[in-house]
């Protein structure tokens, strides 16, 4: 039995070591499993040295090391570095949920049967830790991956000490990748700008160089320099800061624009379904928000059913949400709205009643608490364009998705026979009926389509906010505003209205605060409707009453 376990351990160790070497296949060291022979005495010293003597030892290790030493430094920085008392082997503590195991630093193999008493910790303090952090970055500067090198320079920017600068100077000339070289140049410029001993002209040139950067560190250095006595340096730093501020403001503007577009895309998704039902049938569906909510809950349920495939769950959730909300929509139309034909105000009340029932239903089934829907890995994170401007991926995808849905819907209305009938009914119901269009059937289909799109909107919203029974209510009034603003029965109007309202809200926000900007937009629409009661793009001709 024991042999079997040992075998398993060995196998496991082998597998993991292989995984590791596969990961670091680009590593310059051919054998990542063993420390280079010349470092062995230093390793031994590491276990013996006193607290205060550790730094020189580490410096020696760094001086003749490459990427193979990274695990050692990392483990030590995290305070997980131990050594076995008997043979002085360095091991890493791995804490699982319920047990502690030890693993060889270089071999990556589990050392079996070690108890707490067999090992001793190599302690680190803050000073050592900051040294280690820089050392790791310095070692990474020689990495073969440009991405790693770039991040290493970024890491070093905020703590430029002498050693780092010499390393950077050494590597700068031989660097081949342009991006990394620019970053390194920036780091060196920061250093040069700070050196009071250097002649003014050199420092001013370095400051000029900094004015093109958006890094926080560069800005901090420049701000420090503006407080100095040297007038030439001060003026140059102020000038550079001004240039940077202008660029930051420009990107801030873009950022706001993006958030506005993002809000607009959400509004578009939420209101586009409303626009067709209102446009075709002339009725307001107060339960539209609940169709969105149903879509969001469908996403939640789909994720519950396929917990191991979250990344793909969205592709199941979109059609599922469309179907669930669409079917509920058709049911509402067949059971209630059909009987209230020609009484728009009563329809409004009845659908409101339905929305109350649906909310309470969800509350009873899923509890009134918010439910968390996880974001697929490919949708999380952000796209960093520069240090002050980055786009969150989920918002970007939803923006693209909303446009996709919009154009798909336009195509359905323009190119299919269902679309033709829908447009006919929306323009002149009686005439369409006289021509043989089954208006009842079209009504049900329109309602199903509008509700289904609301369900899809719910899938998108579940990626941005928590899913709760009140999800729909938060969006319904704004969706109405979009439809009314854009003009009924006009999809292009809805598109323009959604994005202009989204952008307007986000641009007002920094000036007035979130709540007041919403109020201002509402008041604006109330006033706008007085001037143009039929919205931005009214239906023309005899179709309009």
């Amino acid at each position, binding site marked *: 039995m024991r042999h079997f376990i040992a075998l398993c351990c060995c196998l496991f160790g082998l597998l993991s070591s292989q995984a590791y070497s596969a990961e670091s296949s680009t590593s310059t060291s051919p054998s990542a499993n063993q420390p280079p022979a010349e470092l062995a005495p230093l390793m031994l010293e590491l276990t013996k040295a006193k607290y205060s003597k550790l730094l020189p030892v580490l410096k020696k290790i760094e001086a003749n090391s490459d990427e193979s030493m990274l695990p050692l430094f990392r483990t030590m920085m995290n305070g997980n570095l131990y050594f076995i008392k008997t043979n002085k082997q360095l091991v890493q503590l791995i804490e699982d949920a319920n047990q502690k195991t030890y693993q060889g630093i270089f071999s990556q193999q589990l050392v079996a049967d070690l108890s707490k008493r067999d090992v001793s910790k190599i302690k680190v303090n803050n000073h050592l830790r900051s040294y280690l952090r820089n050392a790791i970055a310095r070692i990474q500067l020689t990495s073969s991956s440009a991405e790693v090198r770039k991040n290493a320079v970024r890491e070093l920017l905020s703590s430029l000490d002498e050693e780092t600068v010499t390393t950077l100077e050494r590597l700068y000339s031989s660097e081949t990748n342009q991006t990394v070289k620019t970053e390194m140049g920036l780091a060196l410029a920061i250093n040069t700008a700070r050196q009071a001993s250097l002649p003014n002209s050199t420092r001013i040139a370095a400051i000029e160089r900094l004015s093109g950067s958006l890094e926080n560190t560069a800005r901090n250095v420049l701000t420090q320099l503006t407080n100095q006595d040297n007038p030439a340096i001060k003026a140059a730093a102020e000038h550079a800061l001004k240039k940077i501020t202008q660029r930051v403001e420009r990107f801030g503007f873009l950022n706001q624009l993006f958030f506005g577009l993002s809000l607009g895309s959400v509004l578009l998704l939420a209101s586009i379904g409303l626009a067709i039902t209102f446009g075709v049938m002339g009725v307001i569906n107060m339960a539209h928000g609940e169709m969105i909510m149903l879509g969001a809950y469908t996403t939640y349920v789909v994720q519950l059913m396929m917990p191991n495939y979250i990344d793909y769950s969205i592709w199941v959730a979109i059609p599922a949400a469309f179907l669930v909300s669409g079917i509920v929509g058709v049911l509402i139309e067949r059971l*209630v709205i059909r009987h209230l034909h020609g009484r728009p105000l*009563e329809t409004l009340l009845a659908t409101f009643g339905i929305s*109350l029932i649906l909310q*309470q239903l969800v509350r009873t089934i899923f509890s009134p608490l918010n439910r968390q829907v996880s974001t697929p890995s490919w949708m999380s994170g952000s796209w960093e364009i520069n240090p002050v401007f980055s786009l969150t991926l989920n918002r970007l995808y939803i923006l693209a998705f909303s446009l996709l849905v919009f154009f798909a819907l336009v195509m359905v209305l323009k190119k299919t026979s269902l679309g033709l009938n829908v447009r006919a009914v929306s323009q002149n119901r009686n005439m369409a009926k006289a021509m043989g269009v089954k208006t009842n059937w079209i009504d049900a289909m329109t309602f199903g389509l509008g509700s289904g799109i609301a369900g899809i909107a719910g899938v998108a919203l579940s990626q941005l906010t928590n899913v709760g029974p009140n999800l729909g209510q938060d969006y319904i009034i704004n969706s109405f505003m979009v439809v009314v603003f854009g003009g009924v029965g006009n999809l292009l109007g809805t598109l323009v209205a959604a994005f202009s309202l989204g952008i307007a809200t986000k641009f007002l926000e920094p000036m007035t605060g979130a709540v007041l900007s919403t109020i201002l937009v509402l008041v604006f629409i109330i006033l706008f409707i*007085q001037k143009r009661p039929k919205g931005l793009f009214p239906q023309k001709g005899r179709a309009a009453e």
Partner: protein
Amino acid sequence: MSVITQYFSEGRTSGKHTMPFVIILLAVTAMACLSNLYLPADSALHVSTYSITLLGKYLCYAMLALAVDIIWGYCGILSLGHGAFFALGGYAMGMYLMRQIGDRGAYGNPDLPDFMVFLGWKELPWFWHGMDQFWFAMIMAVLIPGLLAFVFGWLAFRSRVTGVYLSIMTQALTYALLLAFFRNEMGFGGNNGLTDFKDIVGFSLQSDTTRVSLFAITALMLAVVFVISHNILSSRFGKVILAVRDSESRARFIGYRTDRYKIWLFVFSAVIAGIAGALYVPQVGIINPGEFSPINSIEMVIWVAVGGRGTLIGAVIGALLVNYAKTRFTAILPEAWLFALGGLFVLVTLYLPKGIVGLYTQLLEKRRTQSVKESEA
């Protein structure tokens, strides 16, 4: 029989029932008050102060329903924002009651209400001045909702915004106010609203006599508003209003400035809602931004729909019934209330378009036709 049908459809049902309604209302009120004040607490006929306050609340709701019915039932304007006028009236009363607390608040500041001291404000905002005078606060309780209704109506009705558009606009109005009143910077107590009231025109709000008096005043006001509304609606003005409801363009072509009629009716309705709000606040002891929430406004509409729109008595009956059901339901089966309310919306619009009063008149008519037929036979 067509005479009777015509009689009913012109909204004169209320005319026939005005006096009986007022008499019944005042008689019940008087009995409830007397039994609360003079019967011992263990008597079977004793009405507890809790019930008195509850009844007072219901009567405020009835008045509110009346306001909604006046414009929806008689003029066809579905307002989904009447809660805003109600809450504004309530806030005016709340501000007065807040000023009456004086230095008895937690911070003991004689001029500033507690929440202002808490926010670190140094002096009273300009719109709080004068609110320590009862008469001034009561003028404001009527004036502010009336003014808002006038401005909104002037903008909306003149540009001929009608139907669902108007409903959505009114909903947006109350939603915007909801958001605004949630802000601390507005100076209305933010999220918590105004509460912890102590007394009204010198009488403690906790005492039984004050509560009974408030209830009696509410009943009296309801009767007054009922009679005034009835008179207005059965006047020449009311006839034009009915014409607007049935065919606005025709009324306009005949030569009536329909927008003016609608504006003034809207203002009148808002004023009634404001009065209801002002009477509501001292009885429940709190006013907060929640009163502005769109769902409240929409609930008022369902009271009217249940009772029967286009009849003043229907609005009152609907408000009393639905709210009584709500009190009972939320006590026994809290989860079921929204199901019941939602179901009520659907069922009433589908099967009871004229409400309970409409059902009653229908049954009455059927019986009469039958008896006429029998006598003919």
